[in-house]
């Protein structure tokens, strides 16, 4: 296989990282660390997760020399983080506890009658666009609060899939969950956000 010249910005960033260019590292750290932290938080508590992400960046300096670009840089970095977290869990003998049994959030499940019809249907339509809603500081703060209250497994799945726009297949690989379990995690997390926005729209309170 010959080397092909890619004019895309990512491949020039990769070249700069390989040369050990400090400003390329600064750029990459800002671009990729939030996603790496989301991966680490799937496995570990907040401070251990931050520690792992920091350690990973140091190992990247050597590891990037062998990076061939078969996966994207983001996916590659996320895999490094996931592997490191798994090793850490293995040594501390901790397991990630996750309940995949039910796809409906209990609070939402209570809103149906015995026949499976809505007893308490959604009251209002969310009509404003996401960007307009985000200009509401109170709502934004409320969202922060609820996101951090989500079980880590749900939050990481949501972050990787929505905010960092990974393909399902990559998320499954990185987090070591099956495709069907990923679907459950995503759906549970979205329902929580749905319930939160509904309450906020109705009461103005978080």
């Amino acid at each position: 296989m010959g080397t092909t010249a890619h004019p895309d910005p990512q491949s020039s960033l990769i070249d700069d990282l390989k040369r050990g260019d400090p400003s390329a590292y600064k750029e990459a750290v800002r671009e990729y660390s939030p996603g790496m932290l989301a991966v680490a938080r799937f496995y570990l508590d907040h401070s251990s997760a931050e520690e792992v992400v920091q350690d990973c960046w140091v190992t990247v300096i050597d590891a990037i020399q062998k990076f061939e670009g078969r996966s994207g840089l983001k996916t590659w970095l996320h895999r490094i983080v996931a592997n490191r977290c798994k090793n850490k869990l293995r040594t501390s003998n901790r397991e990630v506890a996750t309940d995949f049994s039910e796809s409906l959030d209990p609070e939402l499940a209570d809103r149906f009658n015995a026949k499976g019809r809505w007893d308490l249907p959604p009251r209002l339509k969310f009509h404003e666009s996401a960007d307009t809603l985000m200009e509401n500081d109170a709502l934004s703060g409320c969202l922060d609060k609820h996101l951090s209250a989500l079980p880590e497994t749900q939050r990481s799945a949501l972050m990787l899939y929505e905010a960092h726009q990974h393909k399902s297949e990559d998320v499954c690989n990185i987090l070591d969950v099956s495709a069907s379990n990923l679907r459950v995690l995503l759906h549970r997390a979205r329902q929580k956000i749905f319930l939160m926005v509904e309450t906020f729209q109705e009461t103005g309170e978080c």
Partner: protein
Amino acid sequence: MLMCRDLAGIASDYIDGELTSRQNLSVKMHLMMCKDCRTFIGNLRASTDLMKAHSSGRPDEEFMRRIDERVAEALKTWKPEDGDKE
């Protein structure tokens, strides 16, 4: 027949286009007849967009700076491997 509760259970799969064509069809049929479920799907989709808009960006600058320091420290002693081309 697909009930509202069933639909609520697979709503994310519907939004993400992960249903089989048969499931997809029965969701569409249900939505044609059920206003509450249409609202639900619309709101769930809006919540998803909201999440997306909310979480893009906002890195914790203090955390980034700590990484910068660790990387800068490691780069000081780092040497490119022998034989690398100019």
